[in-house]
């Protein structure tokens, strides 16, 4: 035990010495930040996401105002994010669909772009450590994404305050804030994926396409594939036994939860809709005596805690993989 604590302490000392007091990380971080914020493709993407989000939000606000007085007035502020108005999907769907693009756009040419411009060897010739390059790039991307998402979230929240005039309660603010944090983690996942691809593929176009392919696969096809596999293993006919139907539904959900998109969608729906009490198949006997009501924030968090753990772990693991590849990579001046 003591030995284990010693090692953690030793590692922390090392970390502080190596990372925070070396000037390389800071330099790379600042340079990347400036590059990202001034790049045209980033401006275009942010504009696209912002317009889509604000548009969906505005339409939702209109339909909520029309329906004012009907139904229960609980969590009106949160419903701004989950209500779909007319033909436009709700705000969270737009963010869930377009958010990954932001992450992919920031990272797909992080390393191979430097390769192609033949600047990586020049960069590494400077007195900076090699891991400062990848850490700095990832951190800069993360900070830019956090800034964009928080700005968009608070812009929309302020707009909601203007449009419906109902101040959010403390719990609503808490839920909104956690929603934005989860979104940052989710987008960071895609950032680390694109960072990995930019290491694996020499061509920026290839890594961009690979990133988009993975994104489309998880966003669109993972759910269908999960359904196909589940139906193949447990075919459900019309007069199937309830146990088989349950198996089918459970397997389908478990498979689709391998996709970070599913994890993120379930997490955000639970966060922004306090009425969600469970995710997944429910037996009738579990519903016996249950009355509709909203969950407190901590219970909602507990419900999606596995999702959050999965997202954080996946992000870190993929980044660790990218880090590993980058450190092992042979970089020659060419």
């Amino acid at each position, binding site marked *: 035990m003591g030995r284990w604590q010693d090692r953690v302490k030793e590692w922390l000392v090392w970390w502080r010495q190596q990372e925070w007091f070396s000037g390389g990380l800071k330099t790379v971080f600042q340079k990347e930040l400036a590059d990202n914020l001034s790049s045209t493709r980033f401006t275009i993407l942010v504009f696209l996401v912002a317009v889509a989000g604000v548009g969906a939000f505005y339409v939702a606000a209109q339909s909520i105002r029309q329906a004012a007085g009907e139904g229960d007035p609980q969590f009106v502020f949160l419903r701004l994010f989950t209500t779909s108005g007319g033909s436009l999907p709700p705000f969270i769907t737009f963010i869930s669909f377009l958010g990954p693009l932001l992450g992919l756009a920031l990272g797909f040419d992080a390393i191979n772009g430097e390769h192609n411009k033949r600047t990586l060897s020049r960069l590494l010739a400077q007195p900076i*450590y090699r891991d400062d390059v990848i850490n700095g790039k990832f951190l800069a991307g993360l900070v830019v994404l956090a800034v964009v998402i928080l700005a968009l979230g608070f812009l929309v929240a302020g707009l909601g305050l203007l449009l419906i005039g109902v101040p959010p309660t403390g719990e609503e603010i808490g839920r909104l804030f956690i929603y934005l944090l989860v979104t940052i983690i989710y987008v960071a996942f895609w950032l680390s994926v694109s960072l990995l691809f930019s290491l694996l593929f020499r061509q920026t176009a290839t890594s961009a396409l690979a990133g988009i392919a993975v994104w489309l696969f998880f966003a669109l096809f993972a759910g269908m594939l999960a359904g196909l596999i589940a139906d193949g293993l447990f075919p459900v006919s019309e007069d199937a036994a309830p146990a088989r139907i349950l198996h089918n539904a459970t397997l389908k959900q478990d498979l689709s939860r391998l996709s970070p998109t599913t994890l993120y969608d379930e997490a955000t729906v639970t966060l922004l809709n306090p009425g969600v009490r469970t995710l997944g198949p429910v037996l009738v006997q*579990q519903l016996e005596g*249950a009355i509709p009501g909203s*969950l407190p924030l901590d219970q909602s968090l507990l419900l999606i805690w596995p999702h959050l*753990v999965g997202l954080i*772990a996946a992000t870190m693991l993929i980044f660790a993989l990218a880090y590993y590849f980058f*450190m092992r990579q042979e970089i020659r001046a060419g």
Partner: protein
Amino acid sequence: MPWSSIKVALFILDGGIALLRQRPWLVLMTLLFTLALSFSPFVGPARANNGLLLSTAFPGIEAQPGETVTFPLELRNSGVPQKVDLKVVSAPKEWQTVFKGGGMIVTQAFAGNDKPASVDFQVEVPETARPGSYNFVVQAAGPGATSRLGLQVVIKEVATGSDKMTTDYPVLSGTSSTSFQFRVDLTNNGAQERSYSLAAQAPPGWQVTFSPAYDSKQIASLSLKPGKSQGLDVTVKPPQGVKAGTYNIPIQATSGSSKAGVVLKVNITGNYSLELTTPSGRLNADAIAGRESPVTLVVKNTGSADLANITFAASAATGWAVTFKPEKIDLLPAGASQQVTAFIKPSPKAIAGDYVVSLSANAQETSGSADFRVSVRTSTLWGLVGVILVLIVIGAVGWTFRKYGRR
């Protein structure tokens, strides 16, 4: 010896006849005196004296306290027509008397000689009058003639039961929340119209109201013609929370000294009522899935009878367990309350959120129940597992940094 007495009687008769023969004026005077004495105003009806004669058909009347007795007087005049003063010569103390004629109170009457003048003499019998005979003397005095008339009012012992109050169903039974309706008949057996005031001697808190049969008016008194009877509805409302038992409610109709009454009986059967609540009245509770959480309950006996052997039960979803401590209450007196603790244990598989759990207290006679809103929370154990997982991942990444960093 008989012979001697016969001889004495013959002697007296002989002497009387001799007296009549020798002193006829003396005998006449004696006879006149005797007659004058017997026709004096102190005894019997007035005699035509100087042409005036005051008379009535029934000089003696039987009455009861509180009544008004009327003597119709007739005044005949055989002499010259004259104005006559009417006067009460003697009357018992505190008896109100008055002469009435033509609807007015009169003090004088005019006595013509063609037809008699009629005057009513009214006597109000005081409420306090005791049984006995009471004599009055009234006098009609004109300038040339005077006539006196003696009248008598006799008060007999009060005959109870002369008025009657009867009911067919003197005992009614019901619960403490029942409004009891008795039907009572009141009969006036007297000779005159009477006004009765109605009253009831109920225990404190009881409400007794009277109303005529088939009428909703509440009345406090009523008037009855002689020989008539009237149905009365007597409504009796017991106070709230009255104990079970039999209660007597005497009711009475009083008119002067005449009283009629009947004792009504109300038999309150115990009503049973049980209430289940919490000391604060809040009916919600928090529980963690798979763990017992205590809820303090209060069992109240809100009925009017004691309850024995109160047991508890709960209806909750499958997989839930609800136990009570104590498991049963042997005896809970009326109005008393007792605390009971319920341990609610949601199913370990329960989904977080709100559930309805219905708890009930059951006695043989009645039961009380309360619906609880139980907010189920799930255990934070898996959350901790997640935190550990994240820490492991961070450790792994850190290890990667250490192993491959700084090249």
